[in-house]
């Protein structure tokens, strides 16, 4: 039972983070490796703000979302748009976007680690103290509950939006062929910015929630999460919201299981082994669509 709570809360943290990553990748084709940096920066901005002014967590969450969205859009405008503009083909742009993201990530992380001297930082300045509830021996904190609700809410909204709305369809078409999408009257830029803002906002929210959940994070915390989120998205199948949810929960469940059942030495091996096996059985991820290709 307690394992279930642990899985749900860990999976939801992965999910909040991975959803943004997946939304930008599965639609406008931007696999943003600076997503982790945005996540850390949003939380770090809140930390700096708390040094000046005491603020309640709700306000902090809003600020983090705004900071994340802003940073993400700035990266889109200054980095990814520029790469796209100059790249010869979509494929050529793909790896450069990856590298551009890696480079861009170093900048805010360098600032944050300089200012924090690489020490852990938290949001205890907000005076927030998570309540702990106990139901028949199972302990849940209020932050865990909020995280799970936010993650599931965001996933449901995103899934519905992409599948059912006109804008969602437009977004998916941009990922396929943005030139022809423009011929359909779709403004690539506006959609790209909106998507990146959404992705960054989620990363910001994840940043605050995770910091509250863990008590402290450091400037480097984004990196580990990035690899895992990337794994979750691939596991579930790029472009599928259901896939991301399943991917995150699968990874979280396997990690929790290994950690609670064994001495923990082989956690990574087990979780990466699972990814490996799933990809062997389904090369396009659990819910991914097979590439459309005919001869």
């Amino acid at each position, binding site marked *: 039972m307690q394992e279930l709570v642990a899985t749900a809360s860990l999976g939801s943290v992965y999910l909040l983070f991975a959803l943004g990553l997946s939304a930008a990748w599965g639609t406008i084709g931007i696999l943003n490796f600076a997503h982790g940096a945005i996540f850390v920066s949003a939380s770090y901005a809140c930390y700096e703000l708390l040094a000046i002014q005491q603020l309640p967590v709700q306000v902090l969450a809003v600020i983090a979302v705004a900071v994340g969205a802003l940073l993400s859009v700035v990266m889109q405008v200054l980095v990814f748009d520029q790469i796209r503009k100059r790249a010869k083909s979509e494929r050529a742009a793909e790896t450069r976007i990856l590298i551009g993201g890696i480079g861009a990530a170093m900048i805010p992380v360098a600032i944050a680690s300089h200012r924090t001297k690489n020490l852990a930082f938290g949001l205890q300045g907000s005076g927030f103290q998570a309540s702990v509830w106990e139901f028949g021996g199972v302990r849940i904190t209020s932050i865990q509950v909020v995280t799970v609700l936010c993650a599931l809410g965001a996933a449901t909204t995103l899934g519905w939006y992409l599948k059912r709305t006109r804008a969602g369809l437009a977004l998916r078409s941009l990922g396929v062929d943005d030139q*022809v999408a423009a011929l359909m009257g779709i403004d690539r830029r506006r959609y790209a910015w909106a998507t990146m803002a959404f992705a960054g906002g989620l990363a910001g929210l994840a940043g605050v929630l995770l910091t509250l959940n863990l008590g402290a994070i450091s400037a480097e915390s984004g990196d580990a999460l990035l690899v895992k989120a990337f794994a979750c998205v691939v596991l579930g199948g790029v472009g599928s919201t259901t896939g991301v949810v399943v991917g995150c929960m699968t990874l979280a469940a396997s990690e929790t299981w290994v950690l609670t059942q064994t001495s923990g030495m082989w956690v990574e091996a087990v979780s990466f082994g699972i990814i490996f096996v799933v990809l062997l059985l389904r090369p396009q991820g659990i819910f991914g669509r097979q590439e459309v*290709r005919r001869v």
Partner: protein
Amino acid sequence: MLEINDLHVSYGHVEAVAGVDLSVRPGTVSLVLGPNGAGKSTTLNAVAGMVRPTSGSVRIDGADLTGLPAHRVVARGIALVPEGRRVFAPLSIEENLRLGGHTTKASRAREISDRVYEMFPVLHDRRRSAAGLLSGGEQQMLAFGRGLMSDPAYVLLDEPSMGLAPAMVDVVIEKVAVMAEAGIGVLMVEQNTEAGLEIASEVTVMSRGSVVFRGPSERVRSDPSVLRAFLGDAALSGPDSSAPVA
């Protein structure tokens, strides 16, 4: 009226279109002919905002659209059916059509898509399958249908009959005629000259990036040698003379 004045387009230091004038009146079909590499597609792409012209102007009823990005050109009522189909391969046929109607009111879009399905029943049968799996000709039908979805005032067709079986060519040509009757201005590049001439009211021949002949289509239909006369030297050069094929 769609007017193209003294249009120039360059790729690097190659001038693909060098001073083209064209105009399309609503309700008529204007046909553009010319050999491979004449700059026909480039002209259409420049009008649609896919490439930026280096100079010249594109206007609708006097309003300037030169150099607008493609999505804004669509908003002004111009649709391009691009060369080589370019359907959204992983998306379903239905979704491809819905995307065509991105700027159209939902009810109107449904009306048009019903007509497209009627015109090409095979699309209706396969409407949930991915567009990329269709045969070449089926994709061409889809691209054509998708172009209609934006309910345009002017439509630019780049070789709409390419890869279509003769019976389907008839359907498409007929549809173009119907569109023109309904008041849409059509600018069409077509290699199937006979089919194109049947419905066109004006013919333009391009070669090496410029217009070498322009005239009403009756004149060409009644006296094909007119075309040859206007093509002049160009008729004698090309791969045929320098590199004997046969």
